């Protein structure tokens, strides 16, 4: 052995020992550092995955990642990104490639992702990607956070909002419908109000006409009787005087008697003209539903009945057969009878005021009865229908006495009859009939009556 003295050799050995000790220290330090790093890596709550910057393969995962994906660290290492992705539309290899290409330029990316557990169950995550260099190699560090809860909350919120919206929409539709219905109702009410007013006007018009007719007719009859008598008496007187001994009688007396007859004729002519002026209207017959016609009059009387505290019972079935009649004229009759009934009950205690209106079929006629609990007809008149239904007969101090006369004229012009019966307990029932078949005797009864 040459070259190395024992002194040199032992120094060499010493140095070697010193190197070895340093190396061991360094090695120990390195191991400690790696352990520290692992410790930190695993302590992070978020899942951490280290991918190969080129292939995208998983190189390392932390404990949170293993728990999240349901894999062991060994299973995870070497996995492809698609092994951890749901593969649903929008979450495919193409999209992964695009994401990786993106961070090549920008360095980082944050996005939501459909991940997949080992069991195959998909779940929502938020991914932060960062391109980095570890130990001189190109790596992609992925920080993955499970956002299932957040998505669920968002979903619930969205559903709640959608539901709210749909409820608002539905409610709006409901309100719109209600509004439309209301508008329809208002329109209907307006129409029925207009119809009601028209009916009122028609009835008032017919009432005036028939009253005038009846008055003219009745006046004519009442006046023509005495006029006829005056004419005959005066003419007999004049003739007798003319035939008597002419010297005994002054010619002025004959002239006077003749003048009386002439003036009576003149009055008769005036009466005739007045009658022509107010001609009896012939009924305009048309098919008519009794229940409807009754209901309309009842609705017209509504306020009067309420004001007078009268309880009304209407029995007019909609199944009643149609009758051919002049609606307005017949309604005029019913209105007259109902008004009379209301007035007849003025002295009746309020809790005993009843008005029954009944329409039914009786043989070949429609029969309408109006029954009140009023003061009734004075005994001395009850048995004299001709007087009761005659013109100018009234039990009311301010009555014209035309209502019943008009009613009888109208009913008879339809070929029907009208009469009054005292109720066994209290009040009166007025009844009239209208034959279902229009009768031919219409003209005769029209002009024949009213009898006195």
């Amino acid at each position, binding site marked *: 052995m040459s070259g190395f003295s024992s002194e040199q050799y032992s120094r060499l050995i010493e140095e070697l020992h010193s190197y070895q000790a340093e190396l061991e220290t360094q090695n120990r330090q390195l191991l400690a550092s790696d352990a520290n790093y692992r410790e930190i890596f695993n302590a992070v709550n978020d899942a951490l995955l280290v991918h190969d910057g080129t292939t995208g393969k998983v190189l390392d995962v932390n404990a949170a990642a293993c728990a999240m994906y349901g894999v062991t660290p060994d299973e995870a290492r070497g996995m492809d990104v698609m092994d951890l992705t749901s593969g649903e539309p929008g979450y495919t290899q193409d999209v992964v490639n695009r994401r990786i290409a993106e961070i090549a330029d920008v360095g980082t990316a944050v996005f939501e992702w459909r991940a997949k557990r080992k069991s195959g169950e998909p779940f929502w995550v938020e991914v932060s990607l960062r391109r980095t260099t570890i130990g001189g190699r190109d790596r992609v560090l992925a920080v993955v956070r499970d956002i299932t809860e957040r998505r669920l909350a968002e979903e619930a919120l969205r559903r709640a909002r959608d539901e709210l919206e749909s409820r608002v929409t539905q409610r709006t539709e409901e309100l719109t419908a209600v509004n439309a219905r209301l508008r329809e109702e208002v329109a209907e009410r307006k129409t029925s109000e207009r119809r009601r007013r028209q009916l009122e006007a028609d009835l008032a018009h017919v009432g005036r006409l028939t009253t005038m007719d009846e008055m003219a007719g009745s006046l*004519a009859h009442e006046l023509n*009787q*005495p006029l*006829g*008598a005056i*004419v005959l008496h005066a003419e*007999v007187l004049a003739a007798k005087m003319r035939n008597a001994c002419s010297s005994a009688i002054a010619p002025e007396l004959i002239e006077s008697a003749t003048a009386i007859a002439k003036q009576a004729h003149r009055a*008769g002519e005036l009466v005739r003209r007045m009658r022509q002026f107010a001609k009896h209207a012939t009924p305009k017959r048309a098919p008519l539903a009794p229940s409807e016609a009754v209901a309309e009059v009842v609705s017209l009387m509504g306020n009067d009945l309420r004001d007078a505290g009268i309880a009304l019972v209407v029995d007019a079935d909609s199944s009643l057969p149609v009758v051919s009649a002049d609606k307005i004229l017949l309604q005029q009759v019913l209105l007259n009878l109902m008004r009379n009934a209301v007035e007849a009950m003025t002295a009746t205690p309020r809790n005993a005021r009843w008005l029954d209106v009944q329409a039914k079929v009786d043989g070949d006629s429609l029969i309408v009865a109006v029954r009140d609990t009023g003061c009734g007809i004075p005994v001395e008149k009850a048995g004299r229908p001709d007087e009761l239904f005659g013109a100018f007969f009234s039990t009311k101090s301010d009555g014209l006495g035309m209502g019943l006369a008009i009613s009888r004229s109208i009913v008879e012009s339809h070929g029907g009859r009208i009469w009054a019966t005292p109720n066994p307990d209290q009040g009166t029932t007025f009844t009239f009939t209208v034959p279902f078949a229009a009768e031919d005797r219409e003209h005769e009864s029209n*002009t*024949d009556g009213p009898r006195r």
Partner: protein
Amino acid sequence: MNPTPTVHVVEDDPAMTSALCVLIKTMGFTVESYASAEEFLRMYRSRDPECLVLDIRLPGMSGLELQRELTKSGVSLPIIFITGHGDPVIAATAKRQGSVSYLEKPFPSQTLCQSIREAITLRP
């Protein structure tokens, strides 16, 4: 020579009845008056010659109804209608049912006299 003709008068107005009676008596005829159609039917006894002066509007049975009633029971009595309520339809009905005349009140006494004379000569 014929006996004195009789004129039956059915009229409910007393003033009119009395005027008619005076006039007819003046003509020299016999007058029988009745206040209603029913009374006439109850009291009527046929005379010869005769005629009937009949008011159309009467309490109860009307003049036209009485006319029909008489025709039905075969009584051919010439009828002169008088009315205070002139109406062409009623006039036509009266004529159709065979009346001799139809007079509207007030009418001249001469017209009635003439109608009565005509009616009496019509007596078959």
